[in-house]
């Protein structure tokens, strides 16, 4: 970081790339190619409004309603659009279901395509070269680093996202959640379970309530 003096007689100079972004913004606004209000709206949306809670809602509904689930697996784009979750880039959404026989995992080997409307902005590790390369090459090892060990007879299928097609994993519904409400189920659906690098949380993790959530979980990815 450029940080020349301890006291600042002038405004603190932002890092070089920040100045370049500002320059682009200035040029494009001056030319009328971009509206500053639209930029603020985009940042606010992705920072505050869209996130894994959207995907969790979809998963909980699929667990509760077989018709919804059938429609979702058939054409997720339509179904999630009806819930108000649609791709701003017009991308196609595909939901893949985890079963005892097959576990699904999502990656984007080319860059970082991700189901934004359902999960928001991807975490750093999703964008890293390590994950992008290794998810395909050694998915079980990657899963183990996330603390996920699958039964040996469960196969792992890795889905490579593109600009046009984004995948969401439908995790298996945890045991002991019969009769739960949608909101209760939503609380079990972690972001990682919808990328396939995690599983839905166990029923007990919610029943135990606050004490459990205050406990820090052992590092799973050392």
């Amino acid at each position: 970081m450029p940080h020349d003096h301890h006291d600042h007689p002038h405004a603190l100079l932002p890092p070089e790339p920040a100045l370049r972004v500002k320059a682009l913004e200035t040029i494009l606004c001056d030319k009328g190619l971009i509206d500053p209000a639209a930029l603020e709206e985009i940042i606010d949306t992705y920072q505050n409004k869209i996130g894994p809670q959207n995907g969790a809602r979809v998963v909980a509904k699929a667990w509760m309603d077989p018709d919804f689930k059938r429609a979702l697996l058939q054409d997720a784009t339509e179904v999630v659009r009806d819930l108000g979750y649609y791709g701003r880039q017009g991308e196609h959404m595909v939901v893949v279901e985890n079963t005892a026989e097959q576990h699904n995992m999502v990656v984007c080997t080319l860059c970082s395509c991700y189901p934004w409307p359902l999960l928001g902005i991807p975490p750093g590790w999703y964008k890293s070269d390590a994950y992008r390369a290794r998810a395909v090459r050694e998915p079980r090892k990657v899963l183990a680093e996330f603390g996920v060990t699958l039964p040996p007879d469960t196969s792992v299928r890795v889905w490579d996202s593109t600009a046009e097609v984004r995948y969401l994993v439908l995790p298996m519904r945890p045991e002991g959640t019969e009769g739960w409400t949608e909101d209760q189920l939503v609380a079990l659906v972690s972001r990682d379970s919808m990328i396939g690098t995690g599983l839905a949380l166990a029923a007990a993790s919610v029943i135990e309530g606050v004490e459990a959530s205050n406990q820090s979980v052992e590092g799973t990815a050392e």
Partner: protein
Amino acid sequence: MSSCLDLPQVDTPEGEGPIAAPEPVFEQPWHAQAFALTVGLSEAGHFSWADWVKRFSATLKEHGHDRALNGGEDYFAAWLETLESFLAEIGAASSAQVEHTRARWEEAYLTTPHGAPVKLAQ
């Protein structure tokens, strides 16, 4: 720093709470701004998202030749480089224009008293 083969800084699946958004969504304000500019330009019809992804993937691949990218600062460095070259290519902002405007911003920061709003001199 993690080695090339290790995943950098993996969040523990349960540790952050079940539906927490990645924290923070953007590590640096300029990451968010570069992202918003690109999405905004695409939504305004200046280029298709597929065209963006094609170029961005190529930059990432190129940068990844020398070392494994960690998905943070280096990811957005590749993003910004792609955006600059794309905008130059479609004639929206030439590299000379960008450098000129960048220098004006730098000047504005260096000549604005600390605490006062920074504005470009007209």
